[in-house]
Structure formats: structure tokens, C-alpha cells
């Protein structure tokens, strides 16, 4: 049963990320994936909040659905590194380097922020 909820939550997370990407691309037709960065930052922030918010509750199912399901679906590691690699191949070196370095830093900041909000 948990498995089904996790899948559904993951699907919802993915769709939210796609809608982000779609809206950004529609307004700024570009191959630059700042929507993915934003989705990763948001998902990591929610994960930071949820990790510490749900630490007291014994409800392991809710934890898995929110963290593994929704946050896991909302964030992506594959596009976060694959897209910069392709930009680098297309000679957008600075852009690729900026994406690779800012994503983890931004996510770490968001995680800590979410964590402090939960306390």
C-alpha cells in the first residue's frame, strides 16, 4: 500500500517539476535549465523541513511518502548533471560550471532553511 502512495507522490512531484519547466520555457524560450535548479532547491527545502518535522512521529509511511515519494520525484539528479554536460559540449563552459556549482550550494542552503523552519 505504501508503495502505491510513494509512486503516486513521486508522479505528483515529477509533474510539478515539469510544470515549472514548461512555464519557464514558455515565457523564456531557452535551453537553460533554471527551472530544474528551482525544482531541486524547492524539493530539497521541503525535504529539510519534513526530515526534522517528522522525526518525532513514528509514522514511517508518511515519512517515506513525503521524502522518498514527493521530494524525490520533485528533485532530479540526472538532469541536474546531464544538461550541464551537454551545455559544456556545446561550448557553454561558464554556464555548465555555474549550474554544477550553484545547484548543490543552493540545495544545501534550502535544506538548512527548511530544517530551521521545522525547529
Amino acid at each position, binding site marked *: 500500500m505504501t*508503495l502505491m502512495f*510513494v*509512486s*503516486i*507522490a*513521486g*508522479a*505528483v*512531484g*515529477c*509533474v510539478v*517539476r*515539469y*510544470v515549472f*519547466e*514548461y512555464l519557464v*520555457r*514558455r515565457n523564456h*524560450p531557452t535551453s537553460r535549465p533554471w527551472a530544474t535548479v528551482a525544482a*531541486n532547491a524547492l*524539493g*530539497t527545502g*521541503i*525535504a*529539510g523541513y519534513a*526530515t526534522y518535522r517528522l522525526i518525532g512521529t513514528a509514522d514511517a509511511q508518511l515519512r*517515506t511518502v513525503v*521524502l*522518498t*515519494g514527493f*521530494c*524525490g*520525484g*520533485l*528533485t*532530479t*539528479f*540526472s*538532469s*541536474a*548533471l*546531464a*544538461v*550541464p*554536460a*551537454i551545455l559544456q*559540449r556545446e561550448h557553454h563552459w561558464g554556464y555548465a560550471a555555474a549550474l*554544477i556549482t550553484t*545547484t*548543490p550550494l543552493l*540545495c*544545501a542552503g534550502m*535544506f538548512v532553511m527548511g*530544517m530551521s523552519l521545522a525547529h
Partner: protein
Amino acid sequence: MRPHITLSPKQLGLAMLFVALGGATGTLIRDLGLKINLYTIPRGSATYELADWTHQIPWVLLAINTIGVFVATDLLRHRLRHHDPNDPMRLLLVTGFLGGLTSYSGLFVDLAAIWHLTIGGCLLVAAGTILSGLFAAMLGLGRHRRRA
């Protein structure tokens, strides 16, 4: 070909369905993978209780993420190269399946757990994660170069 960037409501609904299908499958596989516990193998009669920080390293998630980066780079560079971002195949495989399969947030949850034990170890794992991802991306690009 100019990518069609604005979709009709019907097309958008269909696109979201593709993403949801891929995402549900990817998330399911990741969740099942994360259930693999490498360290609570019973030895003798007792189950080992482990305080060593290296046992907190999320090897399964690292492996999933690294494979995900490799496949995504390979697909985007090769098979789906000329497909626009709203192409059904790309939505299903890259945005949905690989996006659901890999996780950035899960990584930070695990890194936070290591941080409480050792800050140096946490930074080491974080650096290793990014480097393994970069390595996988380079492999994904390289495979295409040989073929071309």
C-alpha cells in the same frame, strides 16, 4: 526545427500524463532499491548495531543517481538529441522516469545524517557524489563521440 513551446490544454494534459507515468515508475524502482539494507545482515545470533559513519553512506542512492546521469546524458546527446523538450519520449524517459528515479533531496537527507556524525565525512561524500555524477556524464557524452 523550432520547438513548439506552447501547448494546448489537451497537449499539456497528455504531457503531464507521460511525466506522471514515467515518474511513478522511476519513484517505485528507487523506493524498492532503497529498501536494500547493506548493513543489517545478522552475523551469528546478534544483529550488528553500527555506529560507524561510513555505514551511513547512501550507496544505493549514489548508484541510482550515477546510472541515471549516465543514461540521461546518453539519451539527450544521442537518441533524443533532436527531440524538443515536449516530445513524449523525452517526457516519459528523461523528465518522468529518470527524474523520478534519481533524487537530489534524498541525498541531502542522507548527508544530514552523516553531518551529525562527522562533518569532514559529509563533505567528502558530497564531493564524491558530484564527481561520480560528472564522471557518469562524461561517460554518457563519450559513448556518443565514439559512435559519431
